[in-house]
């Protein structure tokens, strides 16, 4: 019976790992954002699985999913805003060339 839950959780965990790899290894800002999206997708899978298989009577779980989807949308909006500003200023969104942002 718990096999279904385990399948969902393992999928979420692997998506999370792929996202962490992408966010750390990519040099392009948009590709880094893609990694973060995969991390959040992994979290979403886990949240839905927890709601469906452990607590379907409480809708706070679905509410939490909506909050994470909001975070995804906000991340995209702000990320693209920063990308446009960076591209205007330096003509590139390569993070290797953004060492001047170091404190």
């Amino acid at each position: 019976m718990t096999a279904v839950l385990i399948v969902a959780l393992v999928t979420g965990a692997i998506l999370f790992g792929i996202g962490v790899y992408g966010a750390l290894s990519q040099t392009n800002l948009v590709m880094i954002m893609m990694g973060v999206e995969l991390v959040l997708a992994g979290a979403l899978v886990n949240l839905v699985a927890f709601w469906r298989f452990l607590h379907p009577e409480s809708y706070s779980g679905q509410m939490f999913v909506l909050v994470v989807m909001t975070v995804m949308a906000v991340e995209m909006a702000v990320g693209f805003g920063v990308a446009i500003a960076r591209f205007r200023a330096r003509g590139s969104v390569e993070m290797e060339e953004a060492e001047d942002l170091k404190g």
Partner: protein
Amino acid sequence: MGAQAFFLAVFGLAAIGFGVAVFRTSSMVRSALALLFSQTAVGCMFLVMQTEFLGVLQIMMMATEMSIMAIFMVMFMMDPGGLGGMDMTHQKRFSIGAGVVAAGAAIAVALLADWGAVTAQAPDAAMQTRELGHELLGRSMLIFETAGVTILTAMIAATAVAIPVQNLASKDDKEVSQ
């Protein structure tokens, strides 16, 4: 339950496969499309888990988000088609290690934790939508409103950041010279 586990595994494998493809292809447009397919597979997993509203929402949201991402890729990348075969990665070994450790730790928790009894029956779709509506406009209204205001703030902030900065000093010089 057997069919549910099977389809969950199929869509899970699709999500993972396309997720890997995002960072394997050298074409940035293909990366955005692979992410779109991965997120759609995640939406299909939601549908298999009988959360119809969230599944459809996930697929619709990600379809628009990833289409915009593909456009940005074409606009900003030096080599959006990937024909130059540029390597756009750094600290690869560390990143692979971090990804494997993160996924391994999460899998270990998933396998070793005692999750208790699993509920076989989910509420039907109409009931879920109704109860989620009550949750959004009742107990969780403050969180829901905060999420809405946060999105609005992010939209304004993103627009403000993206607007080109005018060089006021040179504008003043121009006015003086005229």
